[in-house]
């Protein structure tokens, strides 16, 4: 049915095309018709230019300078990039960030897919559940949630009160102990599974039921159906979520900033790359180095994304 809908809409386009270019179309109208889309695009374009592209260009320049934030930048060539390789905190921040990405992204996606599949079974009140589960995604990056998180996971926080109540003698301070602080932030990220979940849900709904019918007629059980039908057909969406969430995870800042009070502590255990970059730039008047760090992050994330795309050839099934 949908294919017929598609065809009809395509036909409609064909109908319109000659009319638009017809000889009786007034010249002025045609001109304004061309301009209008650009006018509508203008606000976005201005934003891109001044809020995104401008700062990007500025930071590219600053990454080759010694810039103290107050005062003017001085050109120092590649010094900032060389400096990174002798900077132990740079390595620490890379370590923290990679652990975070490598652990939290797969966990979050698995969790999102799991819940999407439950919701896809046609629960009553689906819209409500969908909204409720989506909520953490909207709130997860916010300052308020990070503060709440710090309270819940503190030495005398809610979690530890519960743990003590059920008999654990000495639960650790989850966010103030370097052994657990990063893990707590990973849990926070997994908790914001809503955005990928909603996308998975939409993807699941697009898998034609006939495949499942055919599979079950051929005797495939639920697990087999999941691995042979759901996963392959969902693979473009898994890929999309994977790339998006990976990039997001690399940019994690707010949670770490609030939970550690901006230090990346305790003992640098939550020194995320972006947090270190921020400390260098705004805390230590080292904006040139911070800009170089930002560009290096772009290289890392860009490189990983490229690898992701290359690898996707071997596991993503586009069907078209």
């Amino acid at each position, binding site marked *: 049915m949908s294919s017929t*809908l598609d065809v009809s809409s395509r036909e409609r386009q064909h109908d319109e095309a000659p009319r638009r270019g017809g000889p009786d179309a007034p010249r002025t109208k045609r001109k304004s018709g061309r301009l209008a889309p650009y006018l509508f695009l203008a606000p976005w374009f201005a934003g891109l230019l001044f809020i995104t592209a401008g700062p990007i260009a500025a930071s590219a320049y600053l990454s080759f300078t010694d810039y103290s934030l107050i005062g003017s930048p001085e050109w120092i060539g590649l010094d900032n990039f060389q400096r990174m390789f002798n900077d132990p905190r740079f390595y620490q921040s890379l370590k923290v960030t990679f652990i975070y990405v490598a652990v939290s992204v797969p966990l979050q996606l698995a969790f999102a897919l799991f819940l999407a599949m439950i919701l896809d079974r046609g629960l009553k009140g689906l819209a409500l559940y969908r909204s409720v589960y989506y909520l953490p995604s909207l709130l997860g990056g916010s300052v308020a949630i990070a503060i709440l998180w710090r309270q819940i996971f503190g030495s005398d926080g809610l979690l530890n009160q519960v743990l003590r109540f059920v008999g654990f003698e000495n639960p650790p301070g989850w966010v103030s102990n370097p052994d657990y602080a990063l893990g707590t932030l990973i849990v926070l990220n997994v908790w914001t599974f809503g955005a990928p979940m909603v996308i998975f849900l939409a993807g699941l709904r697009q898998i034609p039921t006939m495949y499942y019918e055919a599979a079950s007629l051929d005797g495939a059980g639920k697990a087999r159906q999941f691995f042979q039908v759901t996963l392959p057909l969902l693979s473009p969406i898994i890929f999309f979520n994977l790339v998006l969430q990976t990039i997001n995870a690399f940019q994690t800042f707010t949670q770490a900033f609030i939970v550690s009070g901006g230090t990346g502590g305790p003992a640098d255990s939550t020194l995320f790359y972006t947090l270190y970059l921020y400390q260098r730039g705004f805390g230590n008047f080292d904006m040139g180095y911070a800009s170089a760090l930002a560009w290096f992050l*772009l290289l890392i994330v860009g490189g990983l994304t490229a690898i992701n795309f290359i690898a996707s050839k071997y596991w993503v099934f586009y069907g078209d």
Partner: protein
Amino acid sequence: MHTIRRNGARAPWPTRLGVAGGVLGLLLTTAACGGDDGGGGAAADGGTTREDGPVNMRFSWWGSDTRHAATQELIDLYESQNEGVTIEGDFTGFADYWDRLATSTAGGEAPCIMQQDTRYVREYADRNALLDLSPYIEDGTIDNSNLDENVAETGMVEDATYAIPTGVNAFSVVIDPQAYAAAGVEVPDGESWTWDEMVETAAQVTQATGGQVYGMQAMGLNGGDTNFEVYAREHGEALFDENGEIGFTQETLVDWWNIEKQASESGAEPPPSTTVEVFNGGVDQALVATGRGASGFWWTNELPALTAGAGHELQFLRFPTEEGNGETGMYLKPAMFWAISSDCESPQEAAMFLDWLINSEEAVNIIKADRGLPVNTELRDQIAPTLDAPGQAAVAFVEEITPDLQDPPALPPQGAGEVQSILQRYTEQILFDQISVEDAAEQFMTEVESAIA
């Protein structure tokens, strides 16, 4: 709609191109970081004044809740007396304050009047972000005739005056006598106690109360750099020497950190993760302010805020010494400074406000000793009797110890603002047993060296 899709062919999204496009957009935001040049140099003339129309100035400070309330009162009073002048208050905690100040300065949006700190005056002054106040002092807008001379000079960089101290205070030990009494431990004698004694008695308090009350709060986090500076000065060294170079030896730092380690291992201090949490909570969450500790290291001007939290009288003690002879490395420090941004559009008005803050009886009556004992000596004597009990205790304590104090150190070099965070990080690593004291000291010195280079 869904059912139509389900029975039909695969929907067209997401396509390869769509995925790639979305990703590219997101990627680019990664690198969107940086700032534009801070504009504007020092204004040559008085800039806009109230004669030219309404003047609006931003005024930034850091501090506790008590200070925020008092400072807002100052603003309200000044506005009511000076028609056409509005002052916009802007406050945060100490750590966030500097990030915010640096960012707004870089954006050419620095607050007109700002609270400054010893560690950062040079940082800003050397980069022309602060207004040279000398012309305003010469023409009498800012009256410095009643200011404590030794202290007033600490805001100078070479011959220019970039900042005026708000007042003086001393970093010292604050104890809760009730906590000692409840633990059945005698309060040590401040004139003769040693560092070892400090750790021992603190451990006794923790033990006697079964961990309900800790003997002391960690030395290396809150004001750690000052704490170590006092220790270094007691040993004839300094954090930075007159040339702005590192002024202490690695051995001294190792000894100081060993005291901390001893305190942590003996239970004199809370477990490290509690220590971290308490520190993040600032003055308001201090152990002595919440009834969870018997002592801590604090500035004399922080006593009122601490007392407000504790709900009962707290006392000062001098720093302990190695020999127990009271020959301490303590010194009177300009508590903080007032400074004017070189971006300020109404420097004349800002200078008038600054003068009012330090020289008017009304203002000093509101500020009291919260920003240190007033730098205006006439007003200092005048307000002393009007202070609340903790304020008077601070005055009395400072008077009592002044003869034994060392001279205040000169303004530290650029990069000195980093020392505290570096010290804090290594202290945390030591407390969590991630690094040996010796390695920490070695790495600390390397890092500080490169921070001030």
